[in-house]
């Protein structure tokens, strides 16, 4: 397939995943903001969320004070914010529009209808829109598109690129979501284990649609170490770093089979998988959770770049 087509498919799903993550972050912030305003309160939480998106400075330049309604607008509607739900969905739709020939009509339909619905949301009175409605809509939309891809797309190279986009982006996003907790915990490590902290961890799990799954997997008691394990190393949780890395490996292997040719991308993916498969939580905490996550974000980005170089530019021979 054309390298540019592959690139559009890869980025289409990356943007879709990113838009979903922003919605999940918004949900998490919203839930945390329902907490009583103690010990630094919700402002701290919102700024951590903006920080995790690398968008705190951009936000304050445009809106000034961290007011919740503005943050909601910034994260959901603001097209100047490249990782807002609206901006990501628009970018995903633009990528999809360019490669419509590579999508089934159901997939295009799902993406295009979502975009039309987004435009309808944009036209509505902001005060009539509560965050839960926006985030529910985002997650439903994401599931609809994902479902259309799963049930209708041919299992050809295009399908592999779409899934690579999802998995690479998801790994990045999980790492960032978890990293937000790092920022929240930073000012006072003493909060670990306290009521407030539990609530914030719960909000994180809820935002990842993993609240009940966690309870099933770990018996219900919240602990920072177990949650970190869940989100990083548990292969059963579909958003864990290890799961994402397994996905990337599987789809790169498929590509190597389809093209009958292996590239440095497969090598890089296997290396990252090797590390995650061997890792233990103790080691991660020894390295420092934040340091580990930052390193994962950067290695994952390197892997994405490698996929880019090998398949998406058409320069590799």
């Amino acid at each position, binding site marked *: *397939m*054309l*390298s*540019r*087509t*592959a690139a559009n498919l890869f980025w289409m799903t990356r943007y879709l995943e990113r838009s979903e993550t922003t919605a999940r972050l918004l949900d998490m912030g919203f839930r945390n903001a329902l907490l009583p305003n103690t010990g630094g309160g919700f402002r701290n939480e919102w700024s951590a969320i903006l920080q995790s998106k690398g968008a705190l400075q951009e936000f304050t330049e445009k809106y000034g004070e961290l007011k919740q309604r503005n943050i909601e607008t910034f994260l959901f509607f603001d097209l100047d914010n490249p990782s807002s739900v609206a901006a990501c969905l628009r970018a995903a739709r*633009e990528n999809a*529009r*360019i490669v*419509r*020939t590579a999508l089934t009509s159901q997939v*295009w*339909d799902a993406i*295009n*209808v979502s975009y*039309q619905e987004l435009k309808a949301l944009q036209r509505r009175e902001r005060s009539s829109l509560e965050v839960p409605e926006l985030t529910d809509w985002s997650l439903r939309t994401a599931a609809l598109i994902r479902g259309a891809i799963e049930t209708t797309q041919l299992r050809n*190279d295009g399908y592999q*690129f779409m899934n690579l986009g999802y998995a690479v982006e998801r790994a990045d996003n999980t790492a960032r979501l978890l990293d937000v907790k790092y920022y929240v915990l930073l000012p006072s490590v003493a909060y670990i284990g306290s009521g407030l902290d539990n609530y914030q961890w719960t909000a994180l799990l809820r935002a990842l649609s993993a609240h009940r799954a966690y309870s099933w997997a770990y018996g219900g008691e919240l602990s920072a170490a177990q949650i970190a394990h869940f989100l990083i190393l548990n292969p059963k949780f579909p958003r864990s770093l290890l799961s994402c890395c397994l996905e990337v490996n599987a789809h790169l292997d498929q*590509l190597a089979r389809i*093209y009958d*040719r292996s590239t440095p991308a497969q090598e890089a993916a296997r290396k990252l998988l090797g590390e995650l498969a061997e890792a233990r939580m103790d080691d991660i905490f020894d390295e420092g959770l934040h340091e580990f996550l930052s390193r994962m974000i950067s290695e994952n980005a390197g892997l994405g770049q490698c996929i880019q170089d090998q*398949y*998406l*530019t*058409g*320069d*590799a*021979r």
Partner: protein
Amino acid sequence: MGIFTFQSLLPLMRARQGEAQTMADPFFNEMYAQDGLRPLYQRLENWYQNMPSEFRALKQAEAEDLFRRYGITFAVYGEGGDPDRLIPFDMFPRVFAADEWRRLERGIKQRARALNAFLSDVYDRGEIIRAGRIPADLVYRNEAYEVAVAGFRPPLGVFNHIVGIDLVRTGPDQFYVLEDNCRTPSGVSYMLENREVMMRMFPHLFQENRVAPVDNYARLLKRTLASVAPQKCERDPNVVLLTPGHFNSAYYEHSFLADLMGIELVEGQDLFVEGDFCWMRTTEGPKKVDVIYRRIDDAFLDPLCFRPDSTLGVPGLMNVYRSGGVTICSAPGAEVADDKAIYTYVPEMVRFYLGEAPILENVPTWQCAKPDDLKYVQENIAELVVKEVHGSGGYGMLVGPKSDKATIETFAAKLAENPSNYIAQPTLALSTCPTFVEDGIAPRHVDLRPYCLVGRDIELVPGGLTRVALTEGSLVVNSSQGGGVKDTWVIAEE
């Protein structure tokens, strides 16, 4: 660019002197002729009369929803506004009888053959010029004449593979060719989608009426393009569609056609030249390209040969083309047959190359380069449509009867300054078709663009794009000025 501009303001319909048309209705109504309902439209009249108005509104909304969902939108160049604007779709079909179509088909194919013969000739020996049937200057000094391909004969001698011939009707048997689109005529996706939407919404209409299908257009187009693969191509030709990119207003059409044909939709950046061939960048490395169906103009094809600032094309492409490594459709240089001054000679081409009498008439045209014609135009300018020879898209033209005195005077001054830059045509009495309006149906003016394919064979699907001026009395079918589209039916032979 090969954009889907609803070409030209249609010449105004005014009864020409000497034509017997009553003042009451100077326009031919394709459904209700002077002697009543034409039998062709009998079933459609029943259909319309039995349709409750709520049902109609429902269907109209359904149609719009379908178009929006398919993503069939159309941005107008330089117009700004909503990039996802829909072209208004009128549900009332336009119908041609089998015998009407037979004549049109013969006329269109004849014209397509003549235009190709002309192009082969003027890039070769120029027999028609030696014979004194067309002035040499008009061809060789034409801006669109491509010196870079003089002496080159494309595969099968075909220059112009997709010919869009714009037709207007003024009476039961009276059709005129308004212009020949020899570059990259657009709009065919609307022909296909309009039918798709109509069949989905009103299946019983197609059970009752024997409407000839148009859906094999893409297959025919693919076959046409493959038939002109270069001789150097030894396997199944790799055909691609070259688009200026997703910001182009006709991008939807490009992607739609590529999909139907099952070929890659490429941009200039996806192609490169190496050795004697053109290649595309794929996830598996370079892949050779044999036929390029381009939807960009000559000037942008190759920055080394044409406009050096073009980023849409492929550097070195013309060298590959001229050494027979790749076929470009339509061939570079075909634009010269698109010219409005050349247009006036198409009937002459039919006689010269084919030895036949032209089946389709041109709109009578005065060439202001000729002193006698210029004199007539200057005396009657308020009654005429005056166009720039190289203009398109309805720009740089004067519609006498619809213009005020000052506009006419300004234009007359420009005309006097450079007469050879202009042609003039009478204002025609364009036919009307019933069209849905607020409270029922009403006649609205229409034109027609069928798409003729020229390769090893000449093919024409029974149908085309009907554009309709939705505003009462308006002759402007341009989509930016309230123009819409209709499904166009040809009733199959018994």
